[in-house]
């Protein structure tokens, strides 16, 4: 095991079968993500960026190879154990926010806490803190349709961090935002990484977004090409 590695990927392959045709997304991929890293994964459409993120988040299984999180394999866990693992370790940020339309911002943020045994008081405290961190505490009682795209994404980030996960997995988090909102979102992610030590893996098409990461990984034809971080 690599010292200080949060994730270790070894000989990771992902193949799909479409009809009689087998499509290889990537094969024999090796990679290590240390604690506190902020990686931007870039690459052309169909290069497997989102698939890789899904494997890191335990919501998809590799065709072969291993995914280790803090030294323990997660690729061979049962669905029930993966649910527990995700609830305890990973926060997810989606391109289209994926908030529950019937719940307020605060209730959306509270969702991951329903999987914990925290008291109501402790939950309220955490929700307030999470909303404060992303700068949207004044919109706690608003429903998603009453919020702008940028505000919704900030609520989604608050939902991702409220249970204090070790890693944030963001799939095109600025893909649906204007430039100003995107910058705000990325600054928030950068803050979470630098100030709170959250490890972040972000998939993006946007080179400007990738600059907020510590390093960029380009996935192309099933292989990584690493560039020095510019930010």
């Amino acid at each position, binding site marked *: 095991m690599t010292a200080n590695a949060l994730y270790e990927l070894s000989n990771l392959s992902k193949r799909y079968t479409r009809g009689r045709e087998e499509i290889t997304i990537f094969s024999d991929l090796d990679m290590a993500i240390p604690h506190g890293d902020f990686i931007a994964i870039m690459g052309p459409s169909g290069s497997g960026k989102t698939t890789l993120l899904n494997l890191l988040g335990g*919501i*998809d299984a590799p065709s072969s190879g291993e995914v280790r999180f803090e030294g323990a394999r997660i690729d061979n866990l049962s*669905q029930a154990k993966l649910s527990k693992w995700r609830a305890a370790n990973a926060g997810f940020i*989606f391109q289209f926010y*994926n908030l529950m339309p*019937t*719940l307020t911002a605060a*209730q959306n943020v*509270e*969702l991951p806490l329903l999987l914990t045994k925290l008291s109501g008081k402790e939950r309220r405290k955490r929700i307030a803190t999470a909303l404060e961190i992303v700068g949207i505490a004044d919109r706690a009682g608003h429903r998603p349709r009453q919020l702008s795209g940028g505000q919704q994404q900030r609520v989604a980030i608050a939902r991702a961090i409220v249970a204090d996960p070790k890693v944030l997995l963001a799939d095109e988090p600025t893909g649906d935002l204007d430039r100003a909102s995107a910058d705000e979102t990325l600054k928030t992610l950068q803050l979470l990484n630098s100030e709170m030590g959250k490890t972040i893996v972000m998939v993006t098409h946007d080179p400007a977004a990738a600059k907020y990461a510590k390093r960029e990984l380009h996935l192309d034809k099933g292989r990584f090409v690493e560039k020095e971080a510019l930010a």
Partner: protein
Amino acid sequence: MNDATLVRKNLFRKKARAILLIISIFIAFLIHGALFAFNAGMSGGFGAVAADRLVTMNRASFTVPMPYAYWGRIQALDGVEAITPLNWVGGYYQEPMNQIQTFAADPESYFIVYPELTVPADQFADALSRRDCAIIGRSVANVQGWEVGQRIPLSSNIWQRDDGTSVWEIDICAIFDAALDNVPTNYALIQYDYFNESLAFGRDSIAWFSLLTGDPDRNDAVAAEIDALFANSPNETRTQTEAAFGESFMAMFGNIALILTLVVGAAFATILMIVGTTMVMAINERIKEVAVMKTLGFPAPRIFRMVLSESILLSLVGGLLGLLAATGLVTLVGAAIADYLPGVHMPLSVALTSLALMLGLGLITGLIPAVTAMRVKIVDALGKS
């Protein structure tokens, strides 16, 4: 917030749809509760019978008369503690529509065989002393506004007097009451002898006898003995418990329970399909939300429970409102018709059956959507925009 909050918010996310579904379920349970409560009320008078009371009638039908002389022969049998003859008069007052259920009876033995009925001693003594006296039930007195001491012309739509008329002048000498609410007092008794002596046809005949054995365990033996006594005679008898007699009487109107079951079953089958289809559509509409919940770490069994709870909650809300409305309706109508059909109320058995049906409806309609939600593959669902 907890899982119940999520269930409630999901159920009412489209208020119009939820309300329409609730109304559908409400109507189904209103129909079920009201119809079965009335059915129980109609059977209730027979349900309150004494366990040791038998009815002997003509083997062919209770509409075919038997000789009055059977009375003494049956009374002489061992095991017959008390017996009273009854003949159907088919009475009405002034207008044929204003029917007065009337029996030509022997009042003295009648109130021995029916101890659940009470009549003031002085009125009873007066009624026995005069042949043209009638003893009427409290409900008849209430409905007609009659009192002791009134003289009324009672007509029959079956029988005719030998003078060509169908009217018997009677004095109301006594009013009887029942010890229990579900024992009917909606009929009148006139003296058999007074009625019989003036008949133009069918004299000295009886529709049926009611008798007490004193011990339900002796019912079968006594019934067999009575029927054996008149075997191979022109008027063979059929003796059965009063409860069985009541059921066969109700069966003349058709198998009411079966008809009700078919009507309510058709309503439930329709509701089942409507609610089931709507629930499947509702879950399909938010399959992505289910995937997000699973991504956050909600385990599949918990999601299964939440979706199933949603359909059960829907069924319970509509069903309980329907049952409540049915109870209110039955109570109101029951009070209004108490003098004609006493004891109509919402029986506990009907309410419990309704509750079981609500849970069953919720489980059946929620099962497919719950399994669908539980099996959602996150990657596939999130891939759908």
